[in-house]
């Protein structure tokens, strides 16, 4: 009876789709502006964390980038070598933009840019102009009771719950734990856990991405092997 009920409940959905925590998937995971908010004359560099099927996630520079809005700041974005860099315009230009956009005096001006990557993937990212704010710091991170910042490779047990924790307030930070090895539970909570079953891939990657509410983003990636 129990199996029948499960069958009935599950029957409505057809083939599987990758869950959001799956790293073994072609996608743009996050775009980073470093720093995410800059004052006049300061610069910010764009890069991204990309996921690719069968590969560990990696950091890449955008193949192309363009300003979406406001177009008066189209010249604030330029390519330096492989990197795309935003330079905050002069104070007077920011004031003019605030006036044009109906913003209060002194508030940061959002510069939305579109960046593209291989596989025809694209993303948008806002760089805030007018004040300096750094990306968040992921510290401390605890993995299976150990200091995650001290680890580069993880060895985890099979068929056991591996606790993962980052000390960030979920009301301020958007948190994602991702993996290509096993199943991630509570992937969008500060306290998650990883479980690798015997039938799962026995090696892969683990990553955490955290976004704050002022445009900042940080990530960290580990390789994982299950034993």
């Amino acid at each position, binding site marked *: 009876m*129990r199996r029948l*009920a*499960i*069958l*009935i*409940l599950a*029957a*409505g*959905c*057809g*083939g*599987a*789709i*990758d*869950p*959001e925590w799956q790293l073994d*998937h*072609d*996608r*743009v995971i*996050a*775009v980073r502006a470093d720093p995410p908010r800059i004052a006049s004359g300061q610069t910010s560099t764009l890069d*991204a964390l990309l996921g690719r099927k069968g590969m560990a996630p990696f950091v890449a520079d955008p193949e192309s980038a363009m300003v979406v809005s406001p177009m008066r700041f189209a010249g604030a974005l330029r390519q330096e070598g492989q990197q795309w860099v935003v330079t905050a315009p002069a104070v007077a230009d920011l004031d003019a933009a605030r006036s044009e956009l109906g913003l209060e005096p002194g508030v940061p001006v959002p510069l939305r840019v*579109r960046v593209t990557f291989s596989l025809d*993937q*694209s*993303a*948008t*990212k*806002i760089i805030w102009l007018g004040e300096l704010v750094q990306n968040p710091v992921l510290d401390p991170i605890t993995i299976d009771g150990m200091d995650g910042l001290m680890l580069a490779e993880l060895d985890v047990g099979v068929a056991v719950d591996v606790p993962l924790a980052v000390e960030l307030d*979920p*009301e301020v930070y*958007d948190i*994602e734990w991702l993996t290509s090895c096993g199943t991630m*539970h*509570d992937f*969008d*909570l500060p*306290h998650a856990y990883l479980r690798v079953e015997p039938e799962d891939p026995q090696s892969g990657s683990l990553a955490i991405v955290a*976004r704050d509410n002022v*445009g900042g*983003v940080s990530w960290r990636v580990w390789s994982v092997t299950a034993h």
Partner: protein
Amino acid sequence: MHGSGRALIATALIALCGVARADDPTPDAGVPPDAPAPPPADAPAPPPEAAAPIKVSGRVIDDKGKPVKGATVKVENSTATTTTDAKGRFTIDAPVGATLVITSEKLGAGLASVTGAALEDTVLLQDVANEEIEVSGEAPISSTGTAQLNREELQRIPGTGGDVVRALNAMPGVVNVQIPLGYSGVVIRGASPQDSRFLIDDFEVPVLFHPFGLRAIVPTESIQSLTYVPGSFDVAYGRSSSGIVLLTSRPGSDTRSTQAEVSLVDGGLIAQGPIGKDTRYMFGLRRSVIDFVLPAIIPDTVDLSLTTVPQYWDEQLRIDYKLDSKWDLSVSSVGTDDVFELYTTKDEDAKTKRFYSRTRFIRLTPAARYHEGEWTTTLALSGMVQELDAEIGLYQRLIVQNPQVTPRATVTRTSSEAAGLRDVVWSSGAEAQIGYSDVDMAIPLERREGEPYPPYDPKDTATHFMGSVWVHDYAAWTSLAASFTPRIRLTNGVRLEYFGRPRETAIQPRAEMQLRLTDQLTSRFGAGFYRRPPEFQSEFLQKDVKSERATQTTMGVEYTPIPGLRLQGSLYYTDRTALITHNPDGTLGNNGRGTSKGAELLAMLYTGEWFGWVGYSYSHSVRVDEIGGPERLFDYDQPHSLNIAGSWKRGRWQLGARFNLYSGLPYTPVVGAELDSDRNLFIPTPGPVNSERAPLHHQVDIRVDYSWKWGPTQLLAFLDIQNVYLNRTVVTYFYSYDYSQRSAFETLPLIPSIGLRGTF
């Protein structure tokens, strides 16, 4: 469509007097029968009517439409008596307003009121569940495409799990939405759920199904009959631009009984009977049992905490009291309470993963009906308290508390002859719906018809409001129906409505001509104007949003070649204007327009042991959302829908099967997506709206009933299985978070429903 009085009396009588319905709406002249409730055998006789006797003819049939031969017809308070012939027909001298008492040795007693020279068919209806006789002198609401079914007929349709309201999807014109989750209404003729209204004993109820869509909020056994009017309904009803579904609650019987039923989904009790000689009661209570089953079947590996397992309560109450020969009083109530809370994690402190929902309402309606001679008046004051509380995560919530009161009054006069016309029915009425909504809202921009489903952003509270809103709507109507010749009957009426929130007055004239071509063949032509007030979702928060408008035109024929066989077909065309759509800035405006057109066929056969049903509908519904915008299909455009059902009953067994075939619904494909990195959301790029369609689906459902006696208890067990050959068809697609993959949501492969009912 007959006059509003006819429609109103049909339902008011059932509500107030405990009479059942007539099956055959093809009467000689379409006069409302005005049958009062059956008095107890020893009740004091009503005073004689003052009018002079006229020669009255009519027909008595059973609930299968077969003529009842040898039934005794007696004029109450008089010695005049006659018996029906082989065709069930009778002629007797009686004054207008008199009551005819009709008795049959086999079927018991029934009543009919004399409203003119030619009476409606009187149906002697057997209440199978209690093995007692109900009486009827009623005809259903007369409108092209209307179907009225009683409880027993609806229960015989396989594939409904014994839920008569779910049997609605066997009606031509009702869109089969396939996904029951979150479905709380009925979609008629390709419109939207909010365009149709669902009424119990003439008053709206806010929800029709429990959130999981498996059950209607009213259990089968508390329902007397269901009337489905897909369009062109008369002026007594409003606030709908599509169709209406009228449900009449079941009056208590003359003998005391209790009925208990349990299935895998819920269980309940219904008690009914007399209190003294003038009062009858019916009380029903039902509770879900799925909350006891669900925790046991959810695997431990699922990241889910059901802190409040989905559960519901339903209640129904009806008390009928006969004050004297002219006054009947009643009190009825219907209510439901649905609640569940879950966390999509094992961590119950993670408020970002919380989902809570509670929907409850209770409606209480005291009513009085006065009948004397040609005049009938009904007065009712219905109050409802409704509460909706939905909370998602930390930021999103919709909390609405809405008490409202609805007074409604109608008056009807019937005359056998006036101004050279025959069987004249004049009817007028008025009602008000005055409500107060206390709203705490913080939700994303609501999706409107045809718009792509937005990505889920738990922090999105683009639509927010906290405050109170008065919504007060008023309506008055009048109609006149008369037969110009024995074959031509015309009904004209007008409904005047004032929607208080947008300060809008709506004048809605409606008319129907009934042409009786032969004794068996009748054609109908109807046209009218209809409005739906802007009260769906958050429409009422914007004062400048006006009502949606529809102009309906229908044409139909009804053919009853032999007793027990009924065929009806209809064509319709609906022009919709002022449809509410989003403006580019996210506000609402009346910029949309559209059309719906189609054809419907329905055949019903009753031949003793057999019950057959064939329903087919063709529909095509298109709209544009802005001036100069592209034309697209409605979300619920379903071109083809076919239902063929058969049921055979002998002795203790009843076997039934239904073949069901219908078009898939349109959907909008996603052609790309881009990551908004700051919100961590992939923003989809939709293709042309509703440019693709899910495939055709077909399935067979079966039902087996077995009844037996166990001591003093009458027991009935049933097994109802949907989709017995496990046909799986794509209903729609769910996309992955980044829209790079999609998963087909398929029809459920097999749904068994098992139940046991005992009456003692």
